[in-house]
C-alpha cells in the first residue's frame, strides 16, 4: 500500500485545498484531540494538532497540596496506567526525602506497574484494532483487561485511579489468595497473546493498513524526543528500566523488544511483545516476593522534604515519564513539572502526517497510543 503523493497537475487541473476538522469529539481521536487537516485532494498538506481541551492544571494544583494529596492527582494524568504515575511521583519525592523503600514494597511496585502495563497495552490493542476496522480483538482484549482490573479492585478497591503506591512504600499487602489469582491470570493470559497474533498482528488486512504506513526513522524519533514503544518501534533500544533501573529492575531478567522500520505496525508489535516481557517480570517478582515491611519508617503523614530539586523518571506504559520536583522546605511542592511522554510523542504528528492520505491519519494517530489526560495534564 503506497501512500505516495498523487496530485495530478496540469492546466485546468488546479485544485483548491480543503480544511477538515477532525475531533475534538470523535472516538478515533482517543479523547479530546482536535486535528486541523489541510487537504489537497486526498493528500494532507498541513496538519495542526490542537490540544488543551483536557487541561486541568495539575502542576499548579500541586503547588497548594501536600505531598500525600499530590499522589491522588497523579492518577489523573495517564488514567489507563495510573500505577506508573504514582510511582514516578513517589520516586521523585523519596529522592528528595532520601527515604529507602523496603524490598517487599519494591517488588510489589514492580508487580503492579507491569500488570498495569499489560492492561494499558490491552486498551491500545483493542482500540487500535477498532481504529483500523477490526472490532473483534477489542472484546478479547477487554476481557483480559477486566481480569487485571479485578485484581486491582481486590487489592486497593479502585479500578482505574489507584493511589496505591504511596510515599515510602505501598498502601496494601497482597495475600496468598491474591497471588494465586494473579498466577492464574498469567497462565490464562500467556496463550492469549498468541491468539492476538493470529487475530490481529498477522492479519493480512491489518498488515496492509499498517506495515508501510507512518514511518519514523531512528533519527527523527530521537530528534522529536519520542519515548517508550514509539521510540523502540523505530529501532532505538532505550528503556528507562534498563538505562536507569529503579525499584530493583536490574535484578530481573527481561528483554527490550525493538522494531525494525518504525512503521505503525512496528510500534504496535513492540507493545504486543512488551506484554510477554511484562508477564515474565510479574512471574519473577511474585516468585521472589520478599517478606517484611510495606512502608518505610519515618515518613510523616504531612512530609516536609528538605529544600532541593530532584528528577526521577520511570518507563511508563507510554514512554519515559519524568517528574521534576522542587521543594522549598514547605508542606507542598514548590514546583512540579511532568515530562509527559504522550505530550511529547504527539508533537511529531504535525510532521509525519504531511504527504499522507487522509485514510491513513487514524492509523498513524492510533499507533502513537496517546491518552489525552496526560497530553493536557
Amino acid at each position, binding site marked *: 500500500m503506497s501512500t505516495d503523493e498523487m496530485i495530478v497537475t496540469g492546466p485546468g487541473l488546479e485544485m483548491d485545498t480543503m480544511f477538515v476538522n477532525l475531533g475534538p469529539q470523535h472516538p478515533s481521536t482517543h479523547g479530546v484531540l482536535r486535528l486541523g487537516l489541510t487537504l489537497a485532494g486526498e493528500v494532507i498538506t498541513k496538519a495542526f494538532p490542537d*490540544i*488543551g481541551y483536557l*487541561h486541568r*492544571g495539575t*502542576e*499548579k*494544583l500541586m*503547588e*497548594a*497540596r*501536600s505531598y500525600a494529596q499530590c499522589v491522588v492527582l497523579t492518577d489523573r494524568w495517564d488514567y489507563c496506567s495510573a500505577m506508573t504515575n504514582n510511582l514516578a511521583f513517589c520516586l521523585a519525592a523519596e*529522592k*528528595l526525602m532520601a527515604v529507602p523503600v523496603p524490598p517487599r514494597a519494591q517488588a510489589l511496585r514492580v508487580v503492579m506497574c507491569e500488570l498495569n502495563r499489560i492492561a494499558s497495552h490491552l486498551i491500545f490493542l483493542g482500540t487500535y484494532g477498532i481504529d483500523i476496522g477490526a472490532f473483534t480483538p477489542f472484546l478479547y482484549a477487554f476481557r483480559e483487561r477486566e481480569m487485571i482490573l479485578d485484581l486491582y479492585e481486590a487489592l486497593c478497591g479502585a479500578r482505574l485511579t489507584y493511589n496505591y503506591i504511596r510515599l515510602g512504600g505501598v498502601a496494601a499487602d497482597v495475600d496468598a489468595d491474591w497471588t494465586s489469582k494473579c498466577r492464574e491470570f498469567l497462565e490464562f493470559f500467556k496463550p492469549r497473546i498468541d491468539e492476538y497474533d493470529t487475530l490481529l498482528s498477522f492479519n493480512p488486512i491489518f498488515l496492509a493498513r499498517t506495515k508501510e504506513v507512518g514511518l519514523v526513522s531512528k533519527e*527523527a524519533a*530521537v*530528534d*522529536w*524526543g519520542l519515548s517508550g514503544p514509539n521510540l523502540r518501534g523505530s529501532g*532505538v533500544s*532505550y528503556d528507562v528500566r534498563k*538505562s*536507569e533501573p529503579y525499584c530493583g529492575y536490574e535484578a530481573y531478567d527481561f528483554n527490550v523488544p525493538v522494531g525494525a522500520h518504525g512503521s505503525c505496525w512496528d510500534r504496535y508489535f513492540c507493545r504486543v511483545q512488551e506484554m510477554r516481557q511484562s508477564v515474565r517480570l510479574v512471574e519473577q517478582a511474585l516468585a521472589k516476593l520478599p517478606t517484611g515491611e510495606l512502608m518505610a519508617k519515618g515518613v510523616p503523614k*504531612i512530609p516536609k522534604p*528538605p*529544600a*532541593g*530539586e*530532584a*528528577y526521577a523518571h520511570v518507563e511508563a506504559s507510554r514512554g*519515559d515519564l*519524568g517528574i*521534576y520536583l*522542587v*521543594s*522549598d*522546605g*514547605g*508542606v*507542598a511542592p*514548590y*514546583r512540579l*513539572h511532568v*515530562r509527559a511522554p504522550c*505530550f*511529547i510523542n*504527539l*508533537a*511529531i504528528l504535525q*510532521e509525519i502526517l504531511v504527504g499522507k492520505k487522509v485514510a491513513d491519519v487514524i492509523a498513524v494517530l492510533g499507533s502513537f497510543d496517546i491518552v489525552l489526560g496526560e497530553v*493536557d*495534564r
Partner: protein
Amino acid sequence: MNPSADVVARLLAAVPKATAAAAPVKDYPTVRLAAPADLLPAARLLKGELGFTYLEMVTAVDWLGPVSLGGFVCRGNPNPLSRKPAAPPVSPVPGPGISYRPVLDLLWSFGDLGENRKVFLRLEVPRDRAEVPSLTGLFSAADWQEREAFDLFGIRFSGHPNLIKILTPDFLKGHPLRKDYIHQEDEYDVDR
C-alpha cells in the same frame, strides 16, 4: 570513571561564563549558564560533539515566592461539620538554602541514549524580560515544550517558528504557573 564529569568539564571549557550549578538537580550533573547568548553554543556542543542528541525536557521555575492563592478557584468547604474552609497548605517562609527572587529559572535536560548519560542546563532570566533563544533549530522536541513554557510561564523563545498558546484556552489571560497569577472569573466559573 564518572562519564558525566567529562561532559561538565567540556561545557565549562567551551562556555566561559558557565559554572557548575550550586544547587544541582539531585544526582545529575547540572551546569548553570550566565546569559541567554550562551545557550545555543552549549546546545550545539552537546548535540554535535558530545552525543547528546535527545532533548528530554524544557521547563522553568518561578522563584518569586509562595504561590498566590488567588490563582486557584477556591470555594468554601461544603462540609457542615468542618468549621472553616480547608485552606491549601502554603508556607510563607522558605527553607534553608532557598532565596525568593524575581527570576524565572529555566531548565533543559539533554540525554545521550546510547551511553545513558544525562546533563541539565539552567539559566536565570528576569521575570519581566523573559526571553531566551529557541532550540527548535537543533531539536524538534523543543517545539511543543517551548510553547508550553511560553503558555504557562510567559517566556519568549526567540526564533521559535510558531510560538502560540498550547494548553490554556484562548480567552485566558496571564501565565498560570507564574507564582503571582490571579484567576479571573470567566463564564465557566458560574454554577448553573
